[in-house]
């Protein structure tokens, strides 16, 4: 920067100079600020993940226990005490004045059932319509229900209840018809044990748990069938309460020590899922959401805990004051509202719990999901398997990102180093000026083209000529060594023979011949080495599966993409090492390779390191190649023949479809932020290395 030294006399010129200075300072600073803005914006989008769950009391209404009807969004509807009111918008006829109720809060739809002395159901569209409709009234004389549970999905409602003698009853009701199928389960648990009946309307079945034994019933229109039963493993203490886990895919069982056990309800034999989780208290009530992996537990004293089953994540811990009977606790299906019917009053709680599944542990640690054999890192934003809950673990994506970059690096680094050494040190300056730009031209291939070639041209070829590709490294390394030996032998015979061998041309000829030979005898070689098919051999001999779009393919394309960048950086560094250094070492009797390896390369080492880091960072962020050349399977397998999905590919493939502001959307922003941070760290280290290099040369 040079400051103006002369005094500028013309006012116009002075003003103009000041204006330009201002414009450049503001504009230039603005552009720099824009860059900071980018990071800030990504952080801003991701920041809601850090928010904790909160519970707030919304409403308290003095009421009797029989005056409750609630909507999915938590608005309360008060029912009059008078038993024979006409049905209209706000006042429904309730045929009972006391007894147990089951309420299911499903958005605009309310299902309410009341029991004793008669069973009656109400199906209401809220608000504003008079579509409330009595479903069916079933006389259940002489039964005094102790418990009542309900489950409804689509047009089916299943109710289970126990009478005073402990006999379990289940009713399956089709709302569209009046068909009712029922079941009476006469087996009673032993003295002191309670039996629990869990209805599942989606599969129209009932799961009965008493003690550590379970039994499944299927409720058909033409009678119910008894399905498999068995024992729940690992239950040492008496069972206190049981409930369906989120989306009915697991069974949650709490024992008297406050341990919560999980069983896989997708499978018929209810296998245990991992060790029990110690809750903060002995729960009397467990509930869970339908669409997210969030569970609730409440103790008799009103303690409330909200947690992610299957992970160590606890979302909320607090208490519900005034809770007398956990049977009067209702959870809305989306988990946003808890309604508590205490004596003489109704309480409605609102739970702010927007991103329960994106805690640090849920994102990076293993979790055991239903229908899986073991805890695993799963990225399935749209859900998979029977229950279809979203599974958001970023670990497989991060793993895939590094896997792709590492395989790319393994292939790119030797080639880039070899090229840089040869072009920068051994090649005559005249030839260097031609070969360097030629190799750099490889950078001109857009990655989408490389990805397309890898995924659609190379993948079928690789399937066919895998032997050739596996033998290719042997050829690529062996051929130059063979030529070196041959050259040496010929020089022994005639010392003046080929003092300067045309290395590139010779190697090219041998390479071409080798590739032609390999492809001609490829089939025979495959037959001889692997007995027909490499893929079959790998599967049978090593148990290695072969994905058609695999890491080898990505590595090849990625290697090609990052090789030119690394080549340029290393070559520049090698070329910049003062010639006097290596000349000195040559004069002292070192061979060319010795002076390169012991003098030039150490001097250029920081640049080599920085090139490696920059190349690696490029590999981490590469999108199109990974997107096109892999099957985008978020696996955690390090194998060279298995597929992968990277953070960048997930973002490119899934962000256009993700709902703006939703969990998936923000998670993909988090993925972008992780990529940003990773590459920024790598590039900064690389930059620091390069600056050190600059200081090194200042000595000369």
């Amino acid at each position, binding site marked *: 920067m040079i400051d103006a*030294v002369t005094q500028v006399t013309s006012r116009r010129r002075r003003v103009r100079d000041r204006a330009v200075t201002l414009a450049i300072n503001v504009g230039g600073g603005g552009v720099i600020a824009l860059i900071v803005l980018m990071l800030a914006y*990504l952080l801003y989008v991701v920041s809601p993940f850090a928010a904790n769950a909160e519970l707030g009391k919304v409403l308290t209404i003095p009421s009797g226990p029989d005056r409750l009807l609630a909507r999915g969004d938590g608005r309360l509807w008060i029912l009059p005490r008078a038993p024979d009111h006409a049905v209209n918008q706000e006042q429904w006829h309730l045929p009972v004045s006391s007894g147990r109720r089951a309420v299911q809060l499903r958005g605009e739809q309310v299902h309410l059932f009341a029991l004793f002395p008669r069973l009656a159901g109400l199906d209401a569209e809220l608000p504003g319509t008079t579509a409330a409709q009595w479903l069916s009234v079933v006389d259940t004389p002489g039964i005094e229900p102790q418990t009542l549970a309900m489950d409804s999905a689509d047009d089916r409602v299943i109710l289970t209840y126990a009478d005073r003698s402990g006999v379990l009853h289940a009713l399956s009701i089709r709302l569209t018809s009046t068909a009712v199928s029922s079941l009476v389960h006469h087996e009673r648990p032993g003295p002191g044990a309670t039996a629990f009946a869990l209805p599942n309307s989606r599969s129209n079945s009932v799961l009965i748990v008493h003690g550590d034994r379970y039994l499944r019933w299927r409720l058909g229109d033409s009678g119910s069938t008894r399905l498999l039963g068995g024992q729940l493993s690992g239950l040492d203490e008496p069972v206190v309460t049981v409930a369906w886990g989120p989306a009915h895919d697991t069974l949650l069982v709490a024992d008297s020590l406050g341990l919560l056990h999980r069983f896989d309800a997708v499978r018929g034999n209810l296998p245990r899922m991992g060790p029990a989780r110690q809750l903060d208290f002995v729960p009397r009530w467990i509930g869970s959401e339908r669409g997210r992996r969030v569970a609730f537990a409440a103790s008799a004293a009103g303690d409330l805990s909200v947690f992610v089953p299957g992970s160590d994540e606890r979302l909320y811990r607090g208490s519900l004051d005034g809770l007398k009977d956990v049977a009067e606790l209702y959870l809305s299906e989306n988990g946003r509202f808890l309604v508590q019917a205490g004596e003489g009053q109704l309480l409605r709680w609102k739970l702010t719990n927007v991103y329960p599944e994106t805690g640090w542990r849920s994102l990076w640690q293993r979790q055991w999901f239903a229908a899986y054999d073991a805890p695993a890192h799963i990225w399935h934003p749209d859900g998979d398997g029977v229950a279809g809950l979203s599974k958001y673990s970023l670990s497989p994506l991060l793993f895939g990102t590094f896997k792709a970059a590492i395989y790319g690096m393994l292939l790119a680094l030797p080639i880039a180093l070899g090229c840089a050494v040869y072009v920068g040190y051994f090649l005559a300056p005249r030839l260097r000026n031609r070969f360097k730009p030629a190799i750099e031209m490889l950078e001109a291939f857009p990655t*989408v*083209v490389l990805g397309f070639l890898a995924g659609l041209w190379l993948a079928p070829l690789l399937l066919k000529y895998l032997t050739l590709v596996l033998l290719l490294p042997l050829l690529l390394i062996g051929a130059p060594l063979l030529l070196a030996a041959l050259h040496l032998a010929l020089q022994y015979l005639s010392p003046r023979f080929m003092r300067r061998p045309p*290395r590139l041309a010779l190697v090219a000829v041998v390479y071409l011949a080798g590739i032609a030979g390999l492809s001609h005898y490829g089939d025979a070689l495959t037959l001889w080495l692997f007995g027909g098919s490499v893929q079959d051999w790998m599967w049978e001999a090593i148990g290695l599966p072969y994905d058609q779009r695999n890491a080898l393919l990505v590595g090849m394309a990625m290697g090609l993409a990052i090789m030119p960048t690394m080549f340029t950086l290393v070559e520049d560094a090698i070329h910049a090492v003062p010639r006097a250094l290596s000349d000195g070492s040559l004069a002292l009797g070192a061979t060319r390779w010795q002076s390169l390896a012991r003098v030039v390369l150490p001097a250029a080492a920081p640049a080599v390191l920085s090139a490696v880091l920059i190349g690696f960072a490029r590999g981490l962020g590469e999108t199109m190649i990974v997107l096109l050349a892999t099957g985008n399977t978020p696996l955690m397998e390090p194998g060279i023949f298995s597929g992968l999905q990277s953070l960048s590919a997930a973002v490119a493939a899934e*962000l256009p479809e993700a709902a703006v502001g939703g969990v998936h959307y923000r998670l993909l922003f988090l993925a972008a932020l992780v990529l940003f941070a990773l*590459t920024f760290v790598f590039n*900064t280290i690389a930059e620091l290395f390069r600056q050190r290099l600059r200081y090194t040369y200042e000595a000369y």
Partner: protein
Amino acid sequence: MKPTDVPEISGALRAGVRRAEPMVWLSAGAVTLALMLLVGLLFLLASRGFSHFWPQPLILLDNVESKAQLGILLDREPVPYAQDYRLLLHLGGEDFFDSPLVWVEEATLRARSTPQAALAIERRDQGPLFAFAEGVDYGEARLELSDWNVADQVAAIRKVRGTAGRVYLRLASGRPVTLPASDLIEVSSPNAMSGMARIRHAFSALGRFVREAPRRGNVQGGVFPAIVGTVLLVLLMTAIVAPLGVLAAVYLQEYAQRGPLTRMVRIGVNNLAGVPSIVYGVFGLGFFVYGLGGSLDQLFFSDSLPAPTLGAPGLLWAALTMALLTLPVVIVSTEEGLARVPRNLREGSLALGATRAEALFRVVLPAASQAVLTGLILAVARATGEVAPLILVGVAKYAPGLPVSSEFPFLHLDQQFMHLGFYIYDLGFQSPSIETAEGLVFATALLLVLIVLLLNLAAVMLRSRLRNAFGTQELR
């Protein structure tokens, strides 16, 4: 240590190995491999790309099992676990066959020929059709063609294009097919063509590829809208990035106080060049499209909400995102150019009484103009080949209209557009019938590579001219 024979032998061996210079040979191998890859890739793209335009011979296979089949030979490979080869034949005409691709085992073949009379017909709404001519109808009466020679058949069928007539054809299986003239785009007889006719046909196909819009879910036709979209995007991006990049570079190099902060900013800018392009896309989608576009919609286009006007991916946001992506390239290159401007030029102009602004605009920037240009060309080259951010911020699989039109406001910044790179991605990744569209993808890839290659070459040449003009000077 006792002297033995072993060290001598190993010493001789070591000396021999040293003289043979195996590592030099190995590094020569790496260079050879890199060059072979470059040539191989170019050759692959060129041969596959051009063969898309080259008339492919039509092969008539007479099979033992089924009736005769006429088509283009795509592949020949050994049948797994059998001493036989099989042929992959592209039959065309998805509307007449269960699958346009069939495998035929050579052992089952009775006869194989390349009949002169076989015609390749390109249709508007369906895939190609390979058949024999039966007759033609110009709107009055059917004219029998079966006895004519092929050249006259082709000429007669070509004449029917644009009329209300129809063409009568016969498939290899003997099934008659009637084709309305409006469905007919081009007819040729690849087996009967002379060398010159083939070349002419290839060039006309190339011309249509560049001029025409895609048809049939992008698997047929040309890439004109994609070319227009790519060019327009790059032009807009350049218009945005050029002033911003130069401004930032001038600020950093000429105006900002030197110190640790400037150094940090410079490292930051250098690093941004290494931030993955998809991250820019994510930022563009969140900040530009939903943030900026969404707010602008609420301010100015609230009538049409909730349908977004600017709050949806479009050309403007794509250009802005790409400008942000290429900003570091332009800044770094311009800074390099500014640093190379000899100090005495600057000092001379200041000594003669110029203000800093005058010195900047009259002396320094003109001297650095080639560096700015190099930076811009490199930016354009990077942006042309970049697809990942575009997937998020504005590119479309198929855009019904071009983003430029004769209707006000002529340049439709809010519209989605087509792009060469995305076209490749879409066809390669999501097309159901990739085998039949492969030629088209290769041709598009070749076009894209050539454009980027030319831009890179231009940048390299400009840069070397620049170095010769001012010599090398380190960045301060």
